[in-house]
Structure formats: C-alpha cells, structure tokens
C-alpha cells in the first residue's frame, strides 16, 4: 500500500462564482477530506488561487490534480509535499482582559511565543500568531487555561520553493 501523507494542492482559477463548489466536488467524489482550504487572489490580476491541504497518496494527488486541471475554468493545478513548500497559518486568540492583569504568566507566554497583540479593550484583548501548526497549537494549549473566549486558525497558505511561472503558462493556452 502506498503511503498517505499531507499534500498542498494549489489551484489557479478564473475568479468565477461556483468554482469553489466545482473544486471541492472533485475531492468529495473521491471521498477525500479537505483539511484546510483558502482562496484568495493570486499574483496575477483576476486569477484566484486555492490552497488546499489534504492527506492522500501521491498517486491520488496526481489524479486529483489532473481532474482539477480538466475543469474549464481551472488554469493550472499543482501538488506539493510539505518539504517542497513554505507555508504558514495564522491564529487569533481572544482572551478576557482581566486575565492579562491577574495572571502575569500570560505576558510571558505572549513574549515567548513571539505573538502580537492586535487589539486591547476593557473586556478582551486579541493575540495573533502566525507560524506552523505546532506553534499555533502550542500557543493554544498555553492560553487555554486563561479564559480563552475565542480561538480561530486560518487554513494553510503556502508558496513553493520552486518557481511557478503561471503567467507564462497562461500565455500558452
């Protein structure tokens, strides 16, 4: 049996309604779970980029990418292993303000984790941490005992170590 591992699938598409549905349906049809998905504009005007993280075999990743590329409005799709990409996630932590003053330990946690304080109000303050999953996860574990009011983590965003010359590929169509 071929090993399963984490793949980052990048999909460059036209910016059209309904494409998210079309892209995700390809995973659904093959019963593959999407662990995270982000969509944003890319380095090219009017071209969107989906970054999807999923666990599967390399063969599955290769087939999924072919199926994605087959979609009319998909310009190009790639799959990469974690080692081939530079990737980050962002997490936000909303903590009750009183705990900042009552629990001096929180200040140390923030300092040690190199997290940023985004906003402070009478009731709460918000900490932001960008990094790998284990870093945001560590901060979550550290802050959990201190009245964590809300926690959210973004999907992975990544760029590849190798160049991806999408503009040239676009011209080739």
């Amino acid at each position, binding site marked *: 049996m071929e090993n399963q591992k984490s793949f980052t699938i990048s999909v460059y598409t036209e910016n059209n309604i*309904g494409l998210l549905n079309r892209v995700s349906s390809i995973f659904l049809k093959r019963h593959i779970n999407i662990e995270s998905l982000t969509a944003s504009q890319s380095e090219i005007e009017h071209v969107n980029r989906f970054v999807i993280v999923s666990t599967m075999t390399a063969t599955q990743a290769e087939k999924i990418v072919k199926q994605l590329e087959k979609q009319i409005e998909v310009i190009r799709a790639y799959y990469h292993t974690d080692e081939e990409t530079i990737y980050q996630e962002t997490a936000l932590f909303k903590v009750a303000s009183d705990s900042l003053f009552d629990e001096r330990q929180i200040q140390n946690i923030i300092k040690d984790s190199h997290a940023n304080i985004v906003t402070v109000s009478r009731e709460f303050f918000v900490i932001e941490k960008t990094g790998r999953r284990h870093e945001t996860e560590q901060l979550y574990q550290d802050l959990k005992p201190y009245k964590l009011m809300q926690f959210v983590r973004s999907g992975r965003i990544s760029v590849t170590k190798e160049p991806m010359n999408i503009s040239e590929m676009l011209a080739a*169509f």
Partner: protein
Amino acid sequence: METQTQTQTETKAKHQKMQHISGAEAVIQCLLAEGVDLLYGYPGGAIMPIYDELYKYQDQLQHVLVRHEQGATHAAQGYARVTGKVGVAMATSGPGATNLVTGIADAQIDSTPMVCITGQVGKHLLGSDAFQETDIVGISTPVTKWNYQVTEASEIPEVLAKAFYIARSGRPGPVLIDITKNAQFETFDFEYQKCTSIRSYKAVPDVDKKQLLDAVELINAAKKPMIIFGQGVILGEAEKEFKTFIEKTGIPSAWTILGLSALESKHPLNVGMVGMHGNYGPNKLTNECDVLIAIGMRFDDRVTGDLSRYAKQAKVVHFDIDPAEIDKNVKTDVAVLGNSKETLTKMLPLVHENSHESWLKEFRDYDAIEFDKVIKDELYPTKEGITMGEVLKEINQVTKGKAVIVSDVGQHQMVTCRYAEFNQTKSSITSGGLGTMGFALPAAIGAKMGAPEREVIAIIGDGGYQMTIQELGTIFQTKAAVKIVVLNNEFLGMVRQWQQLFFDKRYASTEMTNPDFVTIAKGYHIDGQRVTKRENLTSAIQEMIASKDSYFLEVCVEKENNVFPMIPTGASVSDIRLS
C-alpha cells in the same frame, strides 16, 4: 432618390430594432447562430419567455415536446451521437431542471456533446426558496463539463457561445446554462460572436513528437500487438484513419461498447468486444499480448476486470484526448495525447506494414470455442424458447448492418452489442458508462430525427422500457418512425442473472408483472404485434422494417437465459466464463 434614402433609413432602423432584443429572443438567436434547428424540451413557468420566442421562431427552430425532461436529454443525446452535432435540451426550473440530471450525468460519462438550458426564478428571488426554485447549478456541477447561471440578459450571447464551444470541443460533454427569468425578459443590444478559445481551457492537447515516436517504436517491434479502440475514434471522426492504420499494421482490433460501429463488424481485423460480456478471444488475449494499444478508450472497470491482473505482461500505449485519463486506471508505458484523427494520421507513415497471421489465428481459435459453447445456442437455439440473440440475428438479416441500433441497459444490451452487425459508423447508440435504464426509447427518437433517412431500431428490455415508456407520446405526436423492439423476459434480466449466479437464486424484486405492451402502443396509435413463437419471428421483423411509420414489436423471450461469456466482478479478464 428620396425613396431610396427612405428605404435605407428604414432598413437601418429595422436593423437597429432587430438588434435590441429580449434575453429570451437572444437565446433563440444564439441557437440559430450555432446551427441548431432542433431541440427537445418541456415548458414551465420559469422558461416561458423563451418558449414564447420558440413559438415565433417555429419555422426555423423545431421544438420537440417530450413527455418527461429526462426524455429530452436522452433524445438530445441520441441526436448528438448519430450526427456528431451538439444536442440541445430545455426545461424549466425546479423539477424540470432536476429531471435533466440523469441525462446530463449520462452525457458526461459517455462524452456526448449537449447543451441544456434551464429557466430559473428571477434574480431577486434567488435563495428565497421561491416556487420551483432549485440550485441546479450546484446540483449539476459534478456531472457537467461546464455550467453557468445567467442573471443578466447581456451575458447570454457570450455564455451560450462558450457553452457550445465547450460542449463540442476536445472531449465533448454536457453544459448546463441556467437563465433567470428576469434575464429572459430584459432587452439589450444583441451581437453574437462564436467562441473559438477560452484561456483556461485547452480543448485538444498538442501531439508530443517524442511520445508518438516511442509509441511507433513499440508498435513496430511488437510480435503480438492488440488494439482496443473506444468512442474516441468516433468522436475524433477518425474511422477512416483508424481502418487504414490497422490494415497497414495488421493488428487485431477489439472494441469497447462505445467504440462499436467505428469499424465494420465483418472486418477481418475486428476481433470483437472486450469487457464483462465481451468476446472470449480479446479478453483472454489481453493477458497474452505483448503490446496493448488503447485508442480513445478509458479502461473502464467493466473492460478491465481486476486491474492487478490486467495486461501485466504487456507494454501499454494509450492514445487519448483527455490527459486525466492517462494512468487513471492502467499505468501506461507510452501515452500520446491528442485528437485520434491527428495522432493516427501522424503515425500512419511511421508504422511498418505488417501482418500477424498466427497471432490473429489465436483470436479465431478462441472464436471457435466461443461459437461452440455460447453463440451457437444463442443464435441457432434448439430449445423451444426464443433467445435474444436470434432476434438480433433476424434483424441483421433484414437491415444488413445499415440500421442505427439503439439499445437500453441490461441483458438485451449486451446481446445487442455482441450480435448486432454494423457497416457504418455512429450506428450503435447505448448508455455505456452510466448504464441508464430508460435511455433507449427517447435516444432513438433523437437518433431518428438526426438521421431521418436511416432505419432506427430501439432494442429494449421490459424493465427499461417502462422507465421512459411515456415517450411513446412523443413518437405519436412527432410521427418519428422509430422501430421499437421489446425483448420481454418478464424479469429485470441482468440483475436476475447475478442473483442466480452470485446470490443463490434469491430473486429479490426482479420479477415483473407486465402490462399488455401491444395495447399500450395501440393507445398511441403505434401499430405492433407480439411474437411468442419462433416461426413468427422472421415475418414480424420483416413487417416492422417494412413499416413506414413507427412500429412496436414485443418478443417474448426465454425467461431465465443468461448472457455469456462473463467476467465476474473482481475476476481477471483471463478468468472469463463461458457458462
């Protein structure tokens, strides 16, 4: 002079007036610009403005009123498959749209060019759970090549131009365009331009010269080469090139169910069908050939059986237009992307003239075994009951391979594809990938309208017939001279066969108590008869073919016959059973 200027001004004004039209009229103008002269559909609230325009344009554009929207898609498919043109189906929102889904899925898996147009509630009502509102774009996404919701009239020309381009180019497929009612009513300045390219879509991949040369090298060096060809040969209109190619190389050629009729049945290099109920030789020898050449086919599981024991000894060369098909099921040694016509044309001067007599004889030897063990009893039965095979044999006698044969899904479909003879391409129309029971009757209507000069015979089981039997109404109303043969064994035969072989004869819900089919046909003023005895079969078939109008023939066949050969699920192609 004055009169002339006046006329010019009038013409100009008229011209300008003509261009400023409603979205609904624009839809019709787009269809006309794409060469559509026939479409299938069913009206309803959300598509009424377009139907109103169809009424005005009925001289130029024939609308065929089906009896259920599913019938519209299958008729459009039948039309597309027989003509090679894009079939068009139209329906209203909600249930009208959802009823199209089966046909769309069928067209998607069988690569049939089709454009479906659905009405939708007004833009201001979207998402309000309005009457007959359904998210058909969401529903149809996984089964369409492309789909799009139009909410403004001004989008219509560009979107419909794209729809037709996408449906027919590259590997063809279904496209659904959903048009909100407000967009049908709105007026705008209409101008139509055909679509010839889309920047994110490469319809036909370029042929890679190195891959082509690698393929040629393998083919030229092969001692026991075998070709399996599929619908790609028909869709690429490469039948002539394909025939020249096999005649030069002398390579035995087998077909998938959708490749049927691309090469005439009696061609000496035609070695029959591969797959679950295919012929003995090509299945057995798939696991003995040294080079397996796949042309425009996709290694469906019904073709390959157990993949871990499929052609492992062979080098596999795969020609296909769709990059996603390469290495999807069978790992290839050489893959050549491109349109079949182009690749075959480019390969032809490079391949060596050859013949593989002793290798071909191996196929013929297996044929002899298959004839003895299976075919003889099917075509020349000695028992009392009529077999499905002998019905096909009798039809062949009369049609001489010239008819379009439309088959439904099940035992009769396998028998039809095994025994019907063809000497013309685009002549076998069946639901291959999806296996849609109920496909044949409406598909035959579309086929007859696409090829009115040809004899079109629908061969259907008693189960599938009742899934779309209402389309007899369409036949009656349009006078489409479709010949209908129902092979009645009073069972859902293929399921029953599996129950017999793999479920200890527990016939769960497969026995059918059927109505009087001849009387039903007569209710639609379709003449017909029922045959229960062998001695009446030939004359009944002759009478059916001689009829200028539609004709219904019910043949009561042996109830518990099985289709053989058979590769049981999970078995290897070499484990094909003869009984």
